[in-house]
């Protein structure tokens, strides 16, 4: 009886124009800084066969973790549910979800056959009593089930925020063990949420600051394998590395890809002086972009490839500058108190993330590309090395704790600074670099 009533109400709601019910649209504006997260429910996905039940439940969990991890959403626990969803294609009993104040409801189904997984899902705007967009289906291998969950969460996030997602992405970083005076470092890559860690090098030599290529297939990094810091490129799929710069008597470090994926911008030190150069991966041709007795390092391209932001101490302390991609007169953009380093251009092109040192504290901050609207997002003994999520709305960075027992770990923070979270890694971790969204 109750079920029938609910169906009736749901049907009625479906017939009436949803807006006439006076519900606010299911929408989050990220830039406004969400103080009250949007409540959502994601019941276990419906397994197409009993064998898929475990995976169906796990996928729903990962979707929920992705959404709550943004700080923009709040999950309503299953213990509060009035309805269950046992048939993906049956009409949704909106009143039951409205009663527990779920604004968004995510339903799904999971079918598994021969190592292949098919995931279907729908997003429901509970207060409008209607679907938000059309249902979608993803297929992939059973091993890649977490990726399927991330794809569902990316679609939900995109529909509700109007922004691109970032969950189906990876992070390459430096995994660290050992005390401060005998730290061992090796490269590792993992899903953005810390799952599926894979090691890419051993810890025989110091490795630093890996950076993803624009397509996520290769990584640039610095290694002391030769006895001197030199830049290398590593193919992630084949785990094959190649040295890029081996000029006797020099050091090279701080490499980063140009948007074309073929050019590397980096720092080269010769005779104690550090300047910025580019290198063509294909031809090995080197071009000098800066020529000053000061330290020029940490270069990062604008997404259109036309400009480079970098740090220089030419004014006496570390500050941020922008120059044309071919070199030329730089323009200083940082003017606040303290020192600014490690600038990274947002993938949206609108902002630059940086590390700031002021009065003995370190901060991760963002500013517009002309230096205006500077905003500090974090503060600690030592925060450094920001990297942008593919959608330009979240930043991951290294936080190192103080003292003899100090260790490094990864954190993420959204660009409002409200949602600071640790990123799970199996060991200490530093120097994260976020991949683009996977295909």
């Amino acid at each position, binding site marked *: 009886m109750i079920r029938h009533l609910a169906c009736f109400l749901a049907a009625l709601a479906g017939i009436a124009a949803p807006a006439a019910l006076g519900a606010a649209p299911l929408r989050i504006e990220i830039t406004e800084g969400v103080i009250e997260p949007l409540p959502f429910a994601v019941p276990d996905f419906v397994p197409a066969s009993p064998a898929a039940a475990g995976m169906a439940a796990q996928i729903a969990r990962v979707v929920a973790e992705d959404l709550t991890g943004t700080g923009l959403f709040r999950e309503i626990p299953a213990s509060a549910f009035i309805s269950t969803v046992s048939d993906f294609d049956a009409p949704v009993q909106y009143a039951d979800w409205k009663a527990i104040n779920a604004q968004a409801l995510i339903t799904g189904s999971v079918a598994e056959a021969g190592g292949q997984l098919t995931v279907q899902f729908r997003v429901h705007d509970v207060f409008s009593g209607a679907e938000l967009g059309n249902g979608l289906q993803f297929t992939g291998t059973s091993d890649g089930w977490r990726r399927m969950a991330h794809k569902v969460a990316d679609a939900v996030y995109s529909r509700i925020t109007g922004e691109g997602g970032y969950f189906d992405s990876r992070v390459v970083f430096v995994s660290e063990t050992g*005390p*401060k*005076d*005998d*730290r061992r470092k090796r490269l590792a890559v993992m899903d953005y949420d810390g799952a599926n860690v894979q090691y890419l090098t051993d810890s*025989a*030599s*110091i490795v*630093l*600051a890996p950076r993803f290529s624009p397509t996520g297939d290769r990584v640039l990094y610095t290694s*002391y*394998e*030769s*006895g*001197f*810091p030199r830049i290398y490129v590593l193919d992630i799929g084949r785990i094959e590395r190649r040295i890029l710069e081996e000029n006797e*008597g020099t*050091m090279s*470090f*701080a490499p980063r890809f140009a948007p074309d994926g073929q050019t590397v911008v980096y*720092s080269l*030190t010769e*005779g*104690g*002086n*550090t300047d910025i150069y580019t290198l063509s991966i294909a031809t090995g041709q080197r071009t000098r972009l800066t020529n000053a007795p000061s*330290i020029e*390092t*940490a270069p990062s391209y604008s997404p259109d490839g036309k400009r480079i932001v970098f*740090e220089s*101490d030419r004014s006496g302390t*570390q500050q941020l500058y922008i120059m044309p991609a071919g070199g030329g007169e730089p323009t200083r953009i940082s003017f606040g108190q303290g020192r600014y*380093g*490690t600038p990274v251009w947002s993938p949206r092109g609108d902002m630059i993330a940086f*590390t700031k*040192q002021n009065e003995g504290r370190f901060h991760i901050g963002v500013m517009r590309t002309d230096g205006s609207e500077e905003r500090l997002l974090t503060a600690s*003994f*030592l925060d*450094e*090395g920001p990297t942008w999520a593919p959608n330009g709305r979240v930043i991951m960075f290294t936080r*190192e704790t*103080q*003292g*003899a027992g*100090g260790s490094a770990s990864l954190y993420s923070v959204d660009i409002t600074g409200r949602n600071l979270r640790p990123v799970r890694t199996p060991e200490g971790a530093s*120097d994260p670099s976020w991949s683009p969204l996977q295909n």
Partner: protein
Amino acid sequence: MTHPLTSLTTPRLLMLCAVLALAACNNAAKYGGPGGAGGAGGSAVVAGSASDPRSPAYFQQTIGDRVLFQVDQSTLTPEAQQILNGQASWLMTNANFNAVIEGHADEQGTREYNLALGARRANAAREYLVSRGVAGNRLKVVSYGKERPIEICSEESCYAKNRRAVTVLASGLTG
């Protein structure tokens, strides 16, 4: 990473190099002290006795293998110049040794900047040694930035010792 090197030229050492394929071995065998041997830190036993003026131990302990720097500076203090004078004399007397000068920074700074700062420091020491008559082709420089502190507290007493340039001797086998 620090291995006691008790013998200078025995096959055992060469084998160790081959097995470990350590950075140090690419640049001839090093006689590392704290902050030496690939910046690995710790206290290595170096060859010879600190009272034998021709021994690496004398260079490391009696003359002093390192000079210290002020915060964010690469200028050599008078004390540093005095130590480097001693290093220069020793290197000119013991022409069968080359050296790698390792520049280091304390942890108060971003990684890339500290690499560049360490390079400035190592280069300042190198240029001074060259100005005192040591042939430039005997001296290489490398920076470890803040990657290899020898003191691990987060206070100035430790930072002061970490802001250093260490002259690490290497037998001149491969020059």
